[in-house]
């Protein structure tokens, strides 16, 4: 019976992230529109867009191969699995033994690989540019992410997100400079990976420097809906990781009962709202950088990750 309950909670989390992801994207758009003194689309607009896309037919290019057709399902599946492994409202769920940060990075990496392949598959030059730029960004963002992960795991003594979150709540963390560096590095990686503003512009199709939108230009119908869903899941995933690792207060622990879970969901939603607001303010305040500046930006994130791990050795030598 207990196992069934645990499974139900885990399934609840999977449904929760899937349901919240488009809402979160809509919320960020809404806040951005308000900051520009515009009305903005309603919060449920991303759901409506997805429903509309699901109802439409798929238009395939003549040159598209099976890779092009399979990719959206794989991208969506890997991203969803990764997002549902993150301890969002509760730690120690039944699948949390698999919630290894390195595994999550690998899942995201395979989603990105499929996306880049799909961008190349049709053979348009625009998709190719998008893929090559995505790989350029990934080749710097992934090591930076891994360095941040190493810093966190050195501190927590584990690469599992649940134990990291638990040890961050513990009393012996203290004031760690490395954690601040890791946080900044992770935010930079999240911005680059989710194609947010200083790196890429998520709101336009008409910019020559765009990366993410260039790859998915040939997609339509349900394929496009799946890719959009995966993109919003990925944004939610990064915000959830940041929230769960660096601000783990109020998260429920498995076995505390239903009330704790409901409270955990409430706290999680509040944290997401705060994170989305900060993201929107940041995106409104900053200008997009040239695509050739992106390596410098991500190099700085990599440097912060390295520095965080290195500085940790000095304190651990006590």
């Amino acid at each position, binding site marked *: 019976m207990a196992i069934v309950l645990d499974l139900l909670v885990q399934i609840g989390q999977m449904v929760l992230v899937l349901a919240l992801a488009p809402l979160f994207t809509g919320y960020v758009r809404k806040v951005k529109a308000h900051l520009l003194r515009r009305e903005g689309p309603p919060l449920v607009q991303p759901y409506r867009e997805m429903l509309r896309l699901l109802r439409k037919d798929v238009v395939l290019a003549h040159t598209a191969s099976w890779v092009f057709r399979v990719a959206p399902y794989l991208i969506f599946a890997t991203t969803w699995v990764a997002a549902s492994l993150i301890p969002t409202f509760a730690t120690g769920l039944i699948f949390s033994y698999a919630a290894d940060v390195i595994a999550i990075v690998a899942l995201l990496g395979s989603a990105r690989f499929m996306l880049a392949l799909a961008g190349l598959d049709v053979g348009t030059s625009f998709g190719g540019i998008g893929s090559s730029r995505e790989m350029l960004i990934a080749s710097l963002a992934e090591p930076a992410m891994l360095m941040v992960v190493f810093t966190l795991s050195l501190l927590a003594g584990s690469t599992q997100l649940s134990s990291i979150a638990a040890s961050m709540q513990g009393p012996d963390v*203290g*004031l*760690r*400079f*490395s954690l*601040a*560096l890791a946080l900044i590095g992770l935010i930079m990686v999240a911005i680059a990976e989710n194609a947010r503003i200083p790196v890429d512009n998520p709101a336009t199709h008409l910019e020559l420097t765009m990366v993410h939108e260039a790859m998915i230009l040939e997609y339509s119908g349900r394929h496009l809906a799946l890719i959009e869903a995966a993109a919003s899941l990925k944004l939610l995933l990064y915000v959830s990781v940041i929230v769960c690792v660096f601000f783990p207060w109020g998260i429920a622990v498995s076995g505390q009962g239903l009330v704790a879970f409901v409270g955990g969901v409430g706290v999680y939603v509040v944290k997401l709202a705060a994170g989305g607001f900060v993201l929107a303010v940041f995106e409104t305040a900053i200008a997009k950088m040239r695509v050739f500046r992106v*390596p*410098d930006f991500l*190099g*700085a994130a*990599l*440097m912060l990750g*390295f*520095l965080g791990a*290195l*500085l940790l*050795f*000095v*304190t651990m*030598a*006590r």
Partner: protein
Amino acid sequence: MDPLALDVAHLFAGGLVLVSFMLLYQDRMTGLVNNFALHALVVSLSVAWQAHIQHAPHLYITAAIALVVKAIVIPLALHRIIVQLGIHRTIETVVGVGQTMLAGIGLVALSIMVMLPITAKAGTLTQQDLAFALSVLLLGLLMMISRRNAVSQVIGFMSIENGLILAATGAKGMPLVVEISVAFSILIALIVIGVFLFRIRERFDTVDIHALHQYRGEQP
């Protein structure tokens, strides 16, 4: 010692290393000078905090000197020099920010690997101060060899001196007389360097030190 106090000391000393990296990264002249002021501010905060936790009141004077001289007087003077040289809008062509950063990471790793074993018997504070001070020093040297503009080289030089102050603080302080005379010699160095900058500009119409290399007959 209270772990939180040590953590705050670590925060300031680590912040100094981070600001050193920001100095390496920054390519605008005015931004560079402001960054240097931040560097000096962090070093004076670090020294003041260590004065507090080591109960060494003379270190407060060191912190005050660092604050007044290096966070206020020298940046203001550098701003004036930059405006007078007409390079305040210049964006310096830094060769390979990425490679410089990687080299910097290597230097920090090196100094930690060197300093931790040989200071193993000293206290935690001394250990971490010396490791970070060596990193700041090496990063300053790296900045001096990777920049072409004479003003940025001056800033690299001054940031080395900040690293020395941190080292001296960790090693239970140097005598106050030495500290004051070092501060004054830094000021005098600034004046001499300022005069030199204008002389270089008069002679070569630029403060790019590659012009000097050619003048000495080296390969360009």
